[in-house]
């Protein structure tokens, strides 16, 4: 039995030689992705994961791990396996030819025409 400087450890009556079976797969449960909202009006931000056996506990764990300091008004948790994510290898999918001024504010320059018209009048 361990005689520890830590009274909690001494009380637990732990054998120094205490081999245990290895933790099995899923021993630590699956993971949930956590989205945290600081204030009303803010976006929910992804802040990390928790391991949890169900959504309620994932919420409890997320609240304490990611919200115990500072502001929080809302938390979402979603199973990691339910998130569809794109591949970084495919990030060229976000590239697009630059000739798309027709959908940018800067693509519309009316002052030229107006000034020309005013001169003409």
């Amino acid at each position, binding site marked *: 039995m361990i005689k520890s400087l830590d009274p*909690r450890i001494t*009380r637990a009556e732990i054998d120094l030689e205490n081999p245990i079976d290895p933790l099995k797969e899923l021993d630590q449960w699956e993971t949930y992705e956590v989205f945290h909202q600081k204030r009303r009006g803010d976006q929910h931000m992804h802040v990390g994961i928790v391991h949890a*056996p169900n959504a309620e*506990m994932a919420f*409890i764990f997320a*609240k*304490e791990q990611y919200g*115990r300091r500072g502001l929080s008004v809302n938390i979402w948790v979603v199973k990691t396996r339910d998130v569809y994510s794109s591949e970084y290898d495919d990030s060229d999918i976000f590239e697009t030819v630059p000739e798309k001024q027709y959908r940018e504010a800067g693509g519309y320059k009316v002052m030229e025409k107006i000034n020309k018209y005013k001169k003409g009048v």
Partner: protein
Amino acid sequence: MNTQAIKELLYKMADDLLIIGHRNSEWTGLGPILEEDISFSSMAQDKIGQSQAIFQLLNDLGEQEPDTVAFMRGAAQFHNARFLELPNGEYDFSLVRHFLFDHADQLRFEALANSSYEPLAKVAKKVKGELKYHVFHANTWLVKLGQANENSHNRMQAALNQAWNYALGMFEESAHEDALITEGIFEGELALRDKWLATITPIILKAGLQIPASNEWQPIYGGRICQHTEHLSPLVEEMSEVFRYDPTAEW
């Protein structure tokens, strides 16, 4: 206002919170999984913080500083329910105690939010959110483990059986019960106990667990009049070991 009655009420609340907070903090770093370790520690901190707030009210009524009162008394001067000084045991007992105590605690503070003793009503309103979380945590765990598998069900049921009479002991009446009720300070232990039973019964049933048969109910009293189990004295000595190493010092 009956100051004596108020002080007694405050002492038992402060001691309850200090002792359960202390016990629950023993799990920090040793919990069943990292995430729960963190969640449980937060609640232990909340309890100790609430205890400090109540000791501050006592200080305002002329008692000594919170640190002095909490760390310099002997076990025979503590007013906590015996239930709370029992060792943590395994996580089943710790969770069941957390469930039974925190519901009582929440209902007590809820009632005190309307207390005619305003300083206490103010504290009660302030801790509302913390208690809501504690009870949500307790309910979730009880309901899940109560019916998860045979082992967890049996463990939770055994812990509930073991805890029950001690838990009833939380509602030990004080000599000032009438004064507290007539002066609108607190609704009294019996009223609180009724509310508590009505609140926890459906949750225990939902967890697939059973409350021990009422003819077996034998509340374990004594804590409120400073009569404790053999477990409190070592707890108090341990808690105050450093503080007493040099009582003249600021730590």
